[in-house]
């Protein structure tokens, strides 16, 4: 089924153009780059959570046949002494204690799996043998894992530069929360744990570096969501001039936030390639990925809520202890602060709210963004709070949501802490559609019958708004992010009318090669198949900030739209000239410029492109060639929203949760490709359900990661995932050039509390109101057992 008209390309569920290479085994992932004469790098990693390094003996490894080099911190520090942090933020009087993050351990290891030495050998087997030959003597130290214990008096000190293990204190205050709490009809105090998670893209991190000593140029293939940010950070941290660095992130096997940061792995491949004069490749094993790639979430949150007896929330106070892990990763301080605190009132009109965040160091893998990044932590609080308030005042949680929603006529809506202005929304719309789809009234009647029969069945609702499309650069700068958050588009119309598009955002599963072609095809009146999308290569793409925070469609897509309009503006002058009419006498109709009143007299963009390259018959002042660039810096964030509803049955005998139905109604504004949108929602929901029910990074008291493999860390399988019923509404963003809002994180944000609320609803007849995630059978069974005695 061909999309016959370019005009209909936007909004069509067309097949992805990236798929032919991926389904035939012709993708080019980083580890597929086999360069001639390449050496293999591997790391010696710490078996301790916290220890002093007494000695490192590399002599046996260095003498092993086939070993090209063995390096410790002392060897590499002249090349790179620390991994940079790009979001060094704080907003209180407490100065950020930004501990140095050495590429290899400097005298001390601070988390299990920290890299201690680098081995480079002729092939992987030899490198693996040599890793075993490096002898490191450690003097183990007490470790601290728990976020609150880390800042308690007497805790083991992780960094001398961060007394009390505190990285920062950060606060946002709106209204008079203490006053409102004092006057509230009902008050609730609750502690919530938002557990530590491991992103687990199916492709681990890899890098291949090829340093050319003659030219001083280096090419780095790396698993990155943001190759230009990688290039910048490589330049800043190593001193290699930025214009001599080419970063290529080709096919990337999923990111979910964990491939945003700049890591020692890629930096040290560059070091070794420069040192040895050969290409150097490195590929994480999965066990290595679980300790060496950034983790996500990891909050302990203390919550105070005040409400009226009807359930209108008048005050919300949150104090969160958020772990940065052992070192500050690239964006780490920004995630539990701005990305969490700004949106703390969610879709609700809560006039008085405060959020205080204590960022702490613990003896764990560094944390950074993980799908949703900060917004799931805020949404989970709100959605649990709504249900706790509903239970307290004896009302249906749906009614309490409605009572507290920001209303349709309140947009644009400024939040109480003043940081955000929601662009558009209709929260009642998605809630209503979700309730209708699932048949809420009948469902509650069914639940009553099931309960009467002794079954533990529950219904969980979760409404959310997210801040995404990161974002205006002015806001990013004000929040302490060391970079702009604009993005770029170049549209090159070739002489034959075929089009190549260059975008600064990156696709690692999202399908931009398809959806971005759909955007441009509509604006230029050409077929989707005639538009190629280039991304992920710093030598091809001008600049860009990459993909995270659901920013690709709003920001990258917005840039494309603006560049497309520039193409149209130039082409219109050429068309008028060729048609020998005034510019104002032609109009863009049905994929061509047409003379008003004589639509048969027309010129297409390819016609204009040919003339622009012939260049001998152009109107005065019009330059040859048809190529335009736009740098789009959004005026505001975008605010997708929605409601998810989950129905569960909990097995009283085993504590196991079975999801019976799952309905998701999301509003991401205009939809470019419904099939891709649904795919994003499916995957997001799977990750969110997994946080609710199964996934958790578990450490023992010494800092050993106990969930260090896919045998121990429970990402969902096909057999445990329910069939998802999706719906949508369309509330365009009023300021975005495409009216889009982003959909990559919505599923993850909404689904976790929907599932937890459903399980708690199921258990409420037993008097159980909260269990911390993940709601694994043993934990739920223990709660049921305790409640029954």
């Amino acid at each position: 089924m061909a999309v016959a008209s370019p005009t209909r390309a936007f909004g069509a569920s067309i097949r992805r153009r990236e798929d032919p290479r991926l389904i035939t085994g012709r993708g080019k992932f980083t580890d597929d780059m086999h360069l001639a004469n390449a050496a293999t790098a591997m790391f010696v990693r710490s078996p301790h959570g916290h220890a002093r390094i007494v000695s490192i003996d590399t002599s046996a490894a260095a003498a092993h046949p086939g070993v090209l080099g063995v390096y410790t911190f002392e060897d590499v520090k002249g090349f790179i002494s620390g991994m940079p942090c790009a979001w060094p933020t704080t907003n209180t009087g407490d100065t950020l204690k930004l501990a140095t993050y050495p590429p290899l351990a400097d005298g001390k290891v601070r988390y299990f799996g920290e890299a201690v030495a680098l081995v480079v050998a002729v092939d992987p087997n030899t490198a693996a043998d040599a890793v075993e030959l490096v002898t490191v003597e450690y003097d183990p130290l007490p470790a601290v894992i728990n976020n609150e214990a880390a800042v308690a008096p007497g805790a083991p000190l992780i960094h001398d530069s961060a007394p009390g293990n505190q990285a920062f204190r950060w606060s946002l205050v709106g209204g008079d929360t203490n006053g409102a709490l004092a006057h509230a009809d009902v008050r609730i105090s609750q502690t919530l744990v938002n557990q530590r998670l491991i992103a687990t893209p199916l492709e681990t991190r890899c890098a291949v570096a090829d340093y050319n000593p003659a030219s001083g140029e280096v090419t780095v293939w790396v698993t990155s969501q943001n190759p230009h940010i990688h290039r910048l950070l490589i330049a800043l941290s190593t001193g290699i001039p930025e214009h001599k660095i080419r970063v290529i992130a080709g096919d990337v096997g999923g990111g979910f936030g964990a491939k945003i940061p700049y890591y020692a792995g890629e930096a040290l491949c560059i070091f070794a390639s420069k040192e040895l004069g050969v290409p150097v490749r490195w590929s994480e094993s999965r066990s290595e990925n679980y300790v060496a790639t950034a983790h996500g979430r990891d909050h302990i949150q203390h919550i105070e809520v005040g409400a009226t007896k009807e359930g209108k929330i008048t005050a919300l106070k949150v104090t969160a202890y958020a772990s940065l892990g052992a070192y500050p990763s690239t964006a780490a301080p920004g995630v539990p602060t701005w990305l969490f605190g700004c949106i703390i009132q969610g879709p609700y009109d809560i006039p008085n709210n405060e959020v205080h965040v204590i960022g702490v160091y613990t003896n764990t893998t560094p944390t950074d963004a993980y799908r949703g990044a900060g917004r799931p932590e805020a949404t989970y609080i709100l959605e649990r709070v709504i249900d706790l308030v509903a239970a307290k005042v004896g009302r249906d949680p749906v009614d309490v949501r409605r009572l507290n929603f920001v209303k349709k006529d309140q947009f644009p809506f400024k939040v109480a802490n003043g940081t955000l202005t929601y662009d558009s929304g209709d929260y009642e719309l998605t809630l209503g559609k979700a309730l209708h789809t699932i048949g809420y009234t009948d469902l509650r009647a069914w639940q009553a019958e099931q309960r009467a029969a002794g079954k533990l069945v529950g219904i969980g609702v979760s409404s959310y708004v997210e801040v995404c499309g990161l974002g205006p650069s002015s806001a990013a700068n004000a929040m302490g992010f060391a970079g702009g958050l604009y993005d770029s588009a170049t549209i090159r119309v070739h002489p034959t009318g075929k089009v190549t598009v260059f975008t600064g955002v990156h696709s690692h599963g999202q399908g931009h090669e398809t959806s971005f072609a759909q955007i441009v095809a509509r604006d230029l009146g050409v077929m989707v198949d005639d538009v190629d999308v280039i991304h992920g290569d710093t030598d091809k793409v001008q600049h860009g900030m990459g993909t995270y925070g659901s920013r690709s469609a709003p920001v990258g897509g917005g840039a494309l739209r603006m560049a497309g309009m520039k193409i149209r503006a130039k082409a219109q002058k050429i068309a008028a000239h060729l048609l020998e009419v005034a510019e104002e006498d032609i109009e863009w109709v049905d994929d061509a410029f047409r003379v008003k009143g004589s639509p048969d007299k027309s010129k297409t963009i390819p016609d204009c492109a040919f003339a622009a390259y012939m260049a001998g018959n152009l109107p005065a002042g019009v330059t040859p060639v048809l190529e335009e660039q736009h740098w789009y810096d959004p005026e505001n964030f975008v605010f997708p929203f929605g409601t998810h509803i989950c129905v569960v049955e909990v097995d009283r005998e085993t504590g196991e949760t079975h999801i019976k139905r799952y309905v998701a109604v999301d509003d991401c504004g205009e939809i470019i490709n419904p099939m891709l949108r649904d795919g994003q929602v499916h995957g997001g929901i799977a990750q969110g359900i997994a946080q609710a029910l199964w996934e958790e990074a578990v450490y023992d008291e010494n800092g050993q990661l106990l969930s260090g493999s896919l045998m121990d860390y429970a990402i969902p399988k096909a057999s445990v995932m329910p069939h998802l019923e999706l719906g949508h509404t369309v509330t365009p963003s009023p300021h975005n050039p495409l009216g889009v809002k982003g959909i990559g994180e919505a599923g993850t944000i909404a689904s976790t509390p929907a599932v937890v609320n459903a399980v708690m609803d199921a258990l409420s007849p037993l008097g159980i109101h909260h269990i911390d995630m993940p709601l694994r059978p043993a934990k739920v069974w223990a709660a049921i057992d305790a409640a029954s005695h």
Partner: protein
Amino acid sequence: MEEHHVGITVEVNGRPHRSTVEPRTLLVDYLRDDLGLTGTHIGCDTGQCGACTIIVDGQSVKSCMVLAVQADGAHVRTVEGLAQDGRYHAVQQGFWEKHGLQCGFCTPGFMMQSVQILEDNPDPSDEEIRDALEGNLCRCTGYQNIVEAVKAAGATIRSGAETMAVGTGVGA
């Protein structure tokens, strides 16, 4: 080191390969590094993820759990050999049409396992598909469209319909 190497002959996608390998070489590494067939991916080191699933002598296996020397004399099918005579395999077409892949990293393994599923039973139920995909992990799709892809492929196989020609079908 050379004296420890072992000679093997493996037929991969219909083409015989004669090689010498270290006895500890995994079949997946042999395919990727020695033969340059990088379509088969490595997603873990514990046999959980199934990204490296291939078909050896008519049986789907995780090629990270097999030594190259164990494949001596075997007939191996990988993702590179799925399309035949210039046409996609029904499973490839199903994954494409139903958006059964996002980042595409786990996809070769899922497709090879799906080939096995449909060779065993060309009309599996949703539940049978989900159970038979137990050994394959995907982090992007939530599996829903993978199930749809396998069903679509089964329908194509049952109908005997011709699949799309490789090189066609983009932009539709």
